[in-house]
């Protein structure tokens, strides 16, 4: 399976987007991104956890220990109000960039 590198700066957007569906633990976040991208995107653990800690530090997400599906203790991340705001901002920015890149590819 071919791995596609994540565009820099998009990991935050994806994590926030995935979390907007509800609280998830780290492994589930990586899985969700993988699955939702139809197996195209793989999130490296080496990038995921520092990103999670950073976003927690910034107050976009908060963590809580809870029970995972198989009854194991897991740390669940959830969007905060600021996180929701940040998600909206980043989506807007992404849409603008995607549109702009599309324009260039179409017209050049």
């Amino acid at each position, binding site marked *: 399976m071919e791995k596609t590198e994540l565009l820099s700066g998009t990991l935050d957007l994806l994590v926030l987007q995935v979390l907007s569906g509800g609280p998830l633990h780290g*492994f589930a976040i990586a899985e969700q991104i993988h699955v939702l991208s139809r197996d195209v995107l793989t999130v*490296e*653990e080496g990038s995921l956890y*520092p990103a999670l800690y*950073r976003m927690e530090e910034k107050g976009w997400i908060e963590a809580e220990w809870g029970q*995972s599906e198989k009854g194991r203790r*897991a*740390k669940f991340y959830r969007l905060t109000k600021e996180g929701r705001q940040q998600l909206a901002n980043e989506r807007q920015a992404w849409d603008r960039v995607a549109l702009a890149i599309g324009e260039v590819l179409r017209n050049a």
Partner: protein
Amino acid sequence: MKLLRKIRSRLGGLFCRSRRDAEMEAEMRLHLQLRTERNLAAGLSPEEARAAALQAFGGVEQLKERCRDQWGWRWLDEFARDGAYAVRMLLKSPGFAAVAIFTLALGIGVNTSMFSFFNAVIFRPVPFAAPEGLVRLYHTSPRSFGPHAPADLVDVKAQNEVFAKFAIVDLPSFSLAVPGEPAEQVNVCAVSGDYFAMLGVPPLLGRVFGPAEDQPGHDRVIVLSHQYWMRRFAGDAGIVGRTLRLDGEPMTVIGVMPEAFDYPMLWGSSDLWKPLAMNANIAKVRDGYWLQALARLKPSVSLPQAQANLDTIAGRLSREYPLTNAQSGFYLAPLVKSALDPEQRFNWMIMGLAAAVLLIACANLANLQLARNSGRAREYAIRLALGASRFRLIRQMLTESLVLSLLGGAGGVLGAWWANQALAGRLAQAFELPTFRLSVDSRVLGFALVAAVATAALFGVGPAWLASRVDVNAGLKQAGRGVTGDRSRYRLRQMLIVTELSLSLVLLAGAGYFVHGLYKLARRELGWRMDHLLTARLALPANRYGDVEKCRAFYERLNEELAAVPGVERSVVCDILPVFGFYNSRGVIAEGATAPAAGQEALADINTVTPGYFAALGMKILQGRDFTATDRPGAPAVVIVNQTLARQLWPHESPLGQRIGGPDPTHRDWLEVVGVVNEVGFNFIPLPRTHLQIYRPIAQTGGNYFSVVARTSVAPESLVGALRRAVSRVDPDQAVSRVVSAEQVLALGGSEFGILISGLLTMAVSGLLLSALGLYGVIAQLVVERTTEIGIRIALGARLRSVVWLVLRQGLRLAVVGMLLGLAGAWALARLLGSFMPGIVGQDPLVVAGCSLLLFGVTLLACWLPARRAARVDPMVALRAE
């Protein structure tokens, strides 16, 4: 809210480390587990599943570290850990810690004490409004630097375009009497009208002088200083409006200044202020210099502009009055800086010498660190191998340095505080103040902190950098020896020792120059005997002693009363006892000789005396006679000259019967020479402005300010009370001040030198001690490193002497190089000091040779101790240790 959470999270990161680490651990373990399960589900074997999960995960520890990075304030966290580690390491090697902290405490202590002195004197906030605009005005001439003639100041005030305010200050002393109480001498600061307005400090009580109160007739008002008000009137709030008698004149107290206004750095402490009312005659005086001047610059005017304007005025005056002003000028210095040494050079030199002690301490510490690092090379190699970055390693070593130097700094502050207690008492004596506050305030503490941190950087960076260059492979393979770049490290250590030794020689020589210079001065033949002389200052008030005859009667009666006291052999009155020089000087020309150009006349110091003065001082009358009771007003004006003047003016003729005159061609005031005496020398003044000295009978000149001098057959200090009683028998209203022996005058005046010398000696001894310690450390380390080699040599039959020499040679080579460099430094220092104090300090081969010998002896001892240990190496033990 957001901020709060952030702070909580960060502090959590700092203080709840272990909990957060455990949570991170658990989270990642779950992740690995889930990934492994997923791989198992995909059909991998359990081992493969686990391996694949681990591989995907990458380095767990690195990841953890990167996650911790996100917690923020990581540096602080690491700093705290490094600090704790450093403390643990220091506790493990208490010997090293003790030596290092002592070294630093000494270096930082010396500097902190020096700084607190400068802090108290120079950096002390000036208690006046907007002090940056205030300047002090000095009169300059080729021979002097200081007070002004009244007429010059009147002209400056009228002609300048740069001062917003200008005040003239006179510092006389008066007898002050509270009606019904004995008179006492007070230090008065007589100031012209603008003074208080210029300084902008409101009074604590009452008011200050109005603009018209410096006019004669309106000037009977005084303002008390806080310290005098407290001392004399116990802070009596009802003092304003009371009448006191100043020299017999009634004066009304109109105000009291606040405590902060007492600023003794300018001209000693004043007891009270009175208006300076200059009458028309005094305002015309251009050839007497006793007034001080302060000014406030106009807001738009800079110091150089003001100086330029004054230069113009000085030029104009020197053309108009060539007789008095030909070579005079004015010099402006900011008030803030002018307190002690208007040119600041001396302060910088002392601070520089203190800094040299700190540099030696730094070099020592660097050496100690280098030696310690070579023992810890293996530890560093292991840390590097485990993935620590070089930067991280350096930072950890610097933290150790910082911990050390902060501890040393704390010790230094304690030491400085202790030294300040001793210094303050002596400073109070030197400045003639009741107390001198030499506090360790926040500024001094800040200085000590900066010194400690700078020291840490200075002695920490080099060794840390070198140590971090450890070769990991070699370091792990070998067992400790030769791990770091030995050669470059050894070279660095040698350089440090050489620097230390040269700096200590400079310090030693600096102190030696002063000690020897002053010793030579003290041993000089002065031409008069200072022992068994009791002296006192008197100021006869002009209102009761207005003419020469009244003054003369007073001198005569006083001399009679005093001479009758048992234990007094002789009593005389004079203008001044020549302990530190004469007060007055004037130009003289010989009658019949061609008069030199105006301003080029020979300058002679002048003293006015009663008969018997020469005998009382133990001087010799070489030709002619002493003054007698017949040399009084109306009789021919006579003069006694010293031998130097007689030889210069009349090389081929007898001086007796010749006449000398003043510089004014219209008013020569001829004086007939009736005697010739020997020249007198002054203490601490090897190069007086002139060697020519003349004496006038005080009976012919009068004089309200004078000294009475008694030659005693008993200890002069025992007659202090008798002298006071003798004065009050002559005039009960008359105050006496400074009743002391001539030797006490000398001790008081010389106390600044005493302080200077003890300061310099402290620095020199500290420097010597530190560099000896450093050299000892280096050589001892060398012996340890070469133990095996020495063991082999001994085993092969090397003689004891050659082993000692082997070690000694290393140290002595360093000593010689250091001392050669130090000699150059000592030579430069002598030149520098010679320019501050010509005649006292100069090139002094004897001192340099003595200091070199001392330093050489100390280095020899520092090398010999380890050399002896080397000679005692047991070859069997040394070889087995390998």
